[in-house]
């Protein structure tokens, strides 16, 4: 449910209704920081029928939006509440993705694929997908992807899921991804922008396909960025051993970060805990669906560095920590940080080196880190 709401709430012009109780509503409403509506069901509604309450809410708010989307929570889905057949409700986007149907990503994709999209074969530019409001890199990724594509002479047609509904009525036939875990059905997928290498390949592929433009500026910037990273990592390795690392987050993000750390820092990857369905990879990736599993992974082979959320940070506060996925509590984060593109890789490596150095220096002078 939260995945579906996260996708829909990113589309300006869509009024999102959570058809469920306040308990189901508060989490997405709080973490997404977007206006989301709710039918606020109570037990009596389930006994006497909740559809009427939903229809009334739709009637109340529909003049404020270009479209209305209703996301069913568990109980209305079980009792089979349905308004699609009611007169005047035919254009309502109904997303049946209650919590028991699956994961966040499945809910996101279900909503993504239900959006009223029309592909224009002649539309220039590309679409960007894999943007998710809950992702701490959401805004940064949109900005960095747009910058990189613009520097290669490629316009962004639509962003899934952070654009206006009108932009979906005429999207490009080509899509690139900021996060392949969330890639959906719209447009021919031409690769991702995760990492400098992948960014270069994707941009070259787009130019070759006739989507843009000139890749020279981006290739030059990428080369310079790689030199910066190599120089900084080499300097680090002159004084310190490579860190052992535990990574937690979505599959694509964590595998990208693990590859980067191995490539530039010769880091050893103790474990990767994936919150999304793992796919084949040269790293051993474990699906982690609970904090108990996360704790087990970390305690089985304690790492020097944890890349993940504040959950993982808590389990081993003595490790260096780099914020990577939600929830990120107990810290102030104001600016937009990308993970994709050239700035994304630079930023992640910068965070890793600083966190590892801070931990070692604090240990040697006898002081603990902020939460150590």
């Amino acid at each position: 449910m939260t995945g579906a709401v996260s996708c829909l709430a990113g589309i300006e012009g869509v009024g999102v209704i959570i058809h469920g109780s306040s308990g189901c509503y508060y989490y997405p409403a709080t973490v997404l920081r977007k206006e989301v509506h709710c039918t606020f069901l109570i037990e009596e509604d389930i006994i006497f029928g909740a559809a009427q309450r939903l229809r009334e809410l739709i009637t109340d708010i529909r003049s404020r939006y270009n479209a209305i989307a209703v996301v069913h929570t568990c109980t209305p889905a079980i009792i089979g509440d349905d308004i699609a057949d009611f007169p005047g409700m035919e254009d309502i986007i109904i997303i049946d993705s209650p919590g028991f149907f699956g994961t966040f990503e499945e809910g996101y994709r279900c909503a993504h694929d239900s959006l009223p999209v029309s592909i224009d074969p002649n539309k220039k530019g590309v679409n960007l997908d894999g943007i998710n409001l809950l992702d701490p890199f959401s805004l940064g990724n949109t900005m960095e992807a747009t910058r990189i594509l613009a520097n290669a002479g490629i316009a962004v047609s639509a962003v899934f899921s952070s654009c206006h509904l009108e932009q979906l009525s005429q999207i490009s036939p080509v899509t690139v991804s900021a996060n392949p875990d969330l890639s959906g059905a719209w447009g021919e997928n031409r690769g991702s922008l995760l990492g400098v290498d992948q960014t270069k390949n994707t941009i070259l592929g787009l130019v070759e396909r006739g989507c843009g433009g000139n890749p020279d500026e981006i290739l030059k910037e990428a080369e310079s960025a790689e030199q910066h990273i190599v120089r900084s990592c080499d300097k680090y390795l002159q004084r310190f051993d490579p860190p052992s690392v535990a990574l937690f987050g979505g599959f694509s993000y964590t595998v990208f970060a693990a590859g980067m750390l191995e490539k530039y820092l010769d880091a050893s990857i103790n474990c990767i805990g994936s919150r999304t369905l793992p796919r084949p990879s040269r790293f051993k990736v474990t699906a982690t669906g609970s904090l108990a599993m996360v704790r087990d992974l970390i305690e089985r082979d304690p790492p020097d560095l944890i890349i993940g959320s504040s959950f993982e940070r808590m389990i081993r506060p003595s490790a260096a920590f780099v914020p990577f996925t939600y929830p990120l509590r107990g810290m102030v984060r104001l600016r937009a940080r990308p993970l994709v593109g050239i700035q994304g890789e630079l930023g992640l490596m910068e965070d890793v080196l600083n966190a590892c150095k801070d931990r070692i220096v604090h240990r040697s002078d006898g002081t603990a880190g902020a939460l150590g």
Partner: protein
Amino acid sequence: MNSSRNEGCTLTGALSVTTAITDGITIIHGPDGCAHHNSSLLHALQVDSDRLFAPDILSTSLSETEVIFGGEKALEETIRQAAVCEPGVLCVLTSCVSAAIGDDVQAVCRDFSHLPIVVVPTEGFLGGGFSQGVEHALIALSDLGETGEQNGRVTLIGEKNLEYEVEANYLEISRLLSLLGISIDLRFVRNIPAAAVRNLGSASLNILRDPSLIRVGNALESHFGTPFVPAFPVGLEGTRVFLETVGRILGIDSKWAVSAEQKNQNRLIESFHNIRGMVLSSGTNTHPIPSLFEELQQIFDLSFDSRGKTVPIPDPLPVGTSGLSRLLHRWRRICRE
């Protein structure tokens, strides 16, 4: 069932209690989403209170299959998984999904009678709201209590574990009780091991966090014979009355304590003399002005008017003299702007 539409989930209320047992594990018999968003909420609120905290929650991960064929097997498996960790108590919480599909959770748990299992009937929003969850969890966990000799001490019942000021409120109650020469024996339930709940029947007095827990107070009085005070004190006069009430119930002369607190309150009033005559506004808060503020209006000659400086009207209201002092500091800061 009288549940407010915007009160939040029963499950969340119950979790705010059960996850405060330090050696306990809580099983949510529901979809992973319930466990995820509640874990995230509990984590966020505890980190905001400078406490590193990952709630020990397991989910039975109900999926479409269990919704169709029943989720009792999933519950059995999860109980077995939790038992490996030998928790002090294993709390099993139901959700709206398990309630809607009609799983017999009690029957499943009876098959594990060798384990310290407490079933908390929560049923998500089908079981009421947040406060019903708190109430159900406290009553269910009280089954771990044992009747004992009254020890002359006090148990705090139902501290609001998600409240930002929870520890400050605890310190204030401790301070007030110390004026009567009384100490707190048990915090039911806040950061205690399951074994500590055994002492629940030994307290000479229970102090409820607020009157919404009256049914819990009645249940404990009926079961253990422990009298109760219905709420933490609010307001200056309310704090003095609290001391008198506790003293009367425990057979302690409260005159000295009340007099000492009166002097403390006089000092407080004097230190805030410069807010006298201020015009304040409760902003968009449409709730009626509580009696606490009528008391403050009289003491400080304040008036509430929409043209005044907008000040916070906290909910719940500040506890004791210290809580009121902190509130007045916040008001004075705003009046200086």
